[in-house]
């Protein structure tokens, strides 16, 4: 087995969650690499949607932003932000892939500020399309590069993007579409899902060499643990080869 780094592993785990013949709304960074890998592996008909209007791009070249020309290279459509966002708002988009600075046990994300709102200790980018994606896609997948107690926290400084808000029923109560919400969290330590009943984050699988205790210890909130915790398959030779040679040959991320 070849050597691989944490980011490569993260991309592979996220990529395997992408299903052929679905639409994946993809944010900047790791989600793009995961989508590109998925299209070259198991999901050639994955429709990748970018918020500024590119839908169904070939993903031959890695975009550097969610609006650059690679987001609609050999795509099926290049329109605008309303089209993409409105597709999601009326239920066309199965998956949304997002990143965040902080996540809580209900899968809510913060990308707005650290500290109070204004003036803040740290001003982060803001929602961008993340709030729209997590409000409207059927299933949202969060990708967190660094699993630690500063990022998997009890209380967000700012709730930018909705997960299960404050628990079961609260998304619907707020007016968000029924049967939507967080589905998976991919981190450098493992793969999390959510408890059907409590809507709280639950460890489903760890990466090789990572223990359940390690995940629990690196999470500030109480991480639920599935009855049977699996192990994420390490990147295969084929995945690594495609990832390094075709997906990110310029080593922007890996």
């Amino acid at each position, binding site marked *: 087995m070849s050597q691989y780094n944490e980011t490569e592993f993260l991309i592979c785990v996220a990529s395997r969650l992408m299903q052929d013949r679905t639409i994946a709304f993809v944010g900047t960074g790791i989600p793009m690499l995961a989508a590109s890998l998925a299209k070259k592996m198991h999901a050639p008909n994955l429709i990748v949607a970018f918020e500024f209007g590119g839908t169904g791009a070939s993903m031959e070249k890695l975009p550097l932003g969610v609006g650059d020309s690679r987001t609609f290279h050999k795509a099926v459509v290049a*329109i605008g932000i309303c089209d993409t966002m409105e597709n999601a708002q009326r239920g066309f988009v199965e998956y949304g892939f997002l990143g965040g600075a902080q996540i809580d046990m209900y899968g809510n994300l913060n990308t707005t500020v650290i500290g109070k709102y204004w003036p803040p200790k740290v001003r982060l980018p803001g929602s961008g399309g993340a709030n729209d994606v997590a409000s409207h896609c059927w299933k949202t997948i969060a990708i967190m590069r660094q699993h630690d107690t500063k990022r998997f926290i009890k209380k967000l400084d700012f*709730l930018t993007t909705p997960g299960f808000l404050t628990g079961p029923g609260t998304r619907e109560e707020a007016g968000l579409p029924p049967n939507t919400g967080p589905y998976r969290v991919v981190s450098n330590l493992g793969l999390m899902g959510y408890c059907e009943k409590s809507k709280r984050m639950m460890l489903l699988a760890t990466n090789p060499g990572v223990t359940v205790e390690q995940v629990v210890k690196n999470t500030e909130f109480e991480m639920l643990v599935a009855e049977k915790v699996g192990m994420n398959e390490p990147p295969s030779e084929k995945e690594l080869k495609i990832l390094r040679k075709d997906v990110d040959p310029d080593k922007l991320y890996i």
Partner: protein
Amino acid sequence: MDVLESGIAELFQKPDVWGFREWVHKHKDKTLTSKLMSEQEAVAKLVKDGDYLGTELYGTVRAPMSITREVIRQGKKHLRLAGQGIHEIDLLLAADLVDAIDITYVAWEVYGISSILRRSVESGRVKTADWSNGAITWRFKAAAMGVPFIPTLSMLGTDTLKHSAAKVVKCPFTGQKVALLPALFLDVGLIHVHRADKYGNCQIDGISGFAFELARASKKLIVSAEQIIDTEEIKKYPEHTIIPYFLVDAVVHAPYGSHPGEMCYMYWRDEEHLKTFLEDSKDVAKTKAYMDKYVYGVKNHEEYINLIGKDRLKKLETMIGGR
């Protein structure tokens, strides 16, 4: 309709539907007269201190960078902005010309957060209200429709809504909760396009981002174009006209007008330039040096292009790739 929840942010630009109608009725000229002018003329004539500005698309992608640099050279101050951006907003903030931003996303995507935004907001210099990206565009869409607000199911249940100026109401038809977004009418819109004729009929290749909505939400609209083409060419392909001339107040010929950003099918983004700026922007003195060299140090866009160098720009043309 009872208001169930109100965002607590200041509404930096109040929707004035009747005011907008009166303005366009009085000022938008339907005669075919050339609006071709220099960027100096366009900015001097159409941008005022205290204006609310919107730019399209964003920082590294088909952005009106040449016009933005001219706004800075002319020192138009106390501006308010709709914030979906990167380089253009960084420059306006670095020049200390901005008082408030309706922000959705200001950062460098792959390369991380904006140091200039951080300094401007964390110091308390610039006020913010937060919105989702969809929400900002739908606010333009409401303005484009000529109505005071538009409903959405975005932002519900979050602090993004709390720190916006949106309101949650119960839908009178379905009883469900909806967020109402106030229409965002711009004093000035800045858009960079692939081609325009001298009257302001515009064509854009590739994604159109939110050009359609922003153009129609602007009281005054400055268009910069890579190429000025004959009206006959425009009329051959009317389905490609995303902005008709009567929405436009100024047309500026600006080859490489999006530099250091990209222009699809024409030139790729200038990675070296962007990375250098990004490094420089971490430091106040180096940011100033960048501004002195690339913004204040040139008289106009032509000088800027010469400073960047034709060879370098030709190289970016070879890097964009085909269809």
